């Protein structure tokens, strides 16, 4: 009984810490993105709220919480209200299987630095990222607006297309590690990170992951010049905030996945595991912002052609070659 309640307590503490860290990091990721993007564009970025604009995320949060929560006439109310939650919850849940450090021992007990070490962790991540599409498609559909609908349709088509190459690019990693568990994948990289042996899979994964998280240059679902704001055109207040939060949590999840699958997860010299993990996520996030500051948005046909005609065949070839090398 005592061990059970202690385990429950530790689990709750871990959940709380991860959730708090994720939400706080999402807020400051927005700040970092605005600041870094601004410097790429020879601007200052937010610098009024607090020193270096550090209070800007808090100001934004207060603004979103206090704004009116409007529901457009003719909207499908239940789905409209539910959609942002789907996006945020799926993004947050993905972090449950991501290991952010090596094992700790506390009171003679081994505490793994992961909320749930599922043996199908990677499949769990894929399942949730597919579910995240529903938030976008349903949010776009329920808004009763043509821009939202177009954004939702684009989102669904894009994310289904890139899900394939996302999954296929990771098959070689799973083959090398021999496990779907993210903890085992990190353990398998103790000698060398997989980016060295799987550079092609890494490139395919990063491109598909960026398409999956709807970031520039793959932000067609929310292309503001054509669709207003795409699937979240009609959202306001905290529901828009939830979409926004989901997007940035997703960015962290992708950074974490890149770190876990290709960059060796928490392992690294001198610093502790979680610190290395955070640094790796940060580097991936900065590169994603750099890409945002450089590339223009793809056209819809280019997006589909890239996904179906380039990334998927390349991923398949990569699987065959990796398999052959492992066999020999």
């Amino acid at each position, binding site marked *: 009984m005592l061990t059970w309640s202690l385990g429950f307590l530790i689990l709750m503490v871990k959940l709380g810490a991860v959730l708090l860290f994720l939400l706080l990091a999402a807020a400051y990721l927005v700040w970092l993105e605005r600041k870094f993007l*601004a*410097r*790429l*564009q*020879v*601007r*200052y970025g937010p*610098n009024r709220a607090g020193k270096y604009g550090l209070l800007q995320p808090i100001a934004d949060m207060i603004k979103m919480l206090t704004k009116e929560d409007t529901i457009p006439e003719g909207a499908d109310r239940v789905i409209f209200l539910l959609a942002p939650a789907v996006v945020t919850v799926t993004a947050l849940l993905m972090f449950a299987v991501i290991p952010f450090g090596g094992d700790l021992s506390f009171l003679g007990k081994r505490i793994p630095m992961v909320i749930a070490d599922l043996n199908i962790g990677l499949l769990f991540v894929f399942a949730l990222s597919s579910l995240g599409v529903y938030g976008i498609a349903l949010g776009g559909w329920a808004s009763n607006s043509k821009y939202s609908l177009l954004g939702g349709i684009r989102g669904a088509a894009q994310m289904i297309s890139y899900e394939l190459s996302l999954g296929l690019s990771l098959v070689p990693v799973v083959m090398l590690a021999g496990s779907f568990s993210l903890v085992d994948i990190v353990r398998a990289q103790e000698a060398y990170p997989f980016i060295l042996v799987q550079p092609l899979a890494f490139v395919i994964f990063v491109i598909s992951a960026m398409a999956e998280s709807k970031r520039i240059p793959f932000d067609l679902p929310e292309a503001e010049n054509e669709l207003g704001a795409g699937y979240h055109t009609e959202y306001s207040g905290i529901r828009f905030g939830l979409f926004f939060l989901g997007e940035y949590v997703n960015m962290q999840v992708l950074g974490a996945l890149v770190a876990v699958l290709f960059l060796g997860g928490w392992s690294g010299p001198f610093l502790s595991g979680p610190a290395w993990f955070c640094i790796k996520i940060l580097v991936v996030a900065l590169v994603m912002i*750099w*890409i945002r*500051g*450089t*590339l223009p948005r793809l056209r819809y046909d280019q997006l589909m052609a890239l996904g179906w005609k380039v990334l998927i065949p390349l991923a398949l070839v990569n699987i065959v070659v990796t398999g052959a090398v492992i066999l020999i």
Partner: protein
Amino acid sequence: MASALEAVKALASGFATTFMHLFRKPITEEYPEYKRVLPARSRARIILTRDPDGEERCVACYLCSAVCPVSCISMQSAEREDGRRYAAWFRINFARCIYCGLCEEACPTSAIQLSPFFETCEREILKLVYEKEDLLVSHQGKDKEYNFYKVAGVVTALGGKGEHFREDPPVDIKTNLP
């Protein structure tokens, strides 16, 4: 294959360009701390200037009021004993003004001018209604020399209104109707 190499090269040069921009000083002018000196002819707050003698230039001809596209200028004309016209009251509603500068162009005596001073924000909209004493300034504005009443429009020792050299008699507005 060659085109793929070309594409990669193009991408790399793009990324290099944005990366180099990281080390440049931002070109943003941070407004309340740094105020750029605006050109003398930039159009913002309207002023009523005085002639070199220090008298009001405005002859209350209503041309600015007539040309104003948003009808934000209103006035009442009056006449002094020597025949010199002036505005008994002159009012500009800056809440409506669009700073188009048509009043300045219409003004026959260089009285009404637009100044580069643009910080006229108020929390209360009625504070944006400027009266004549708010508009009058003690200088000549952009036109330093011009002095309408030196040559016309008043009774002098040389003659009455409209009797000076090259001066037309005053228009009788009653006969000027279409």
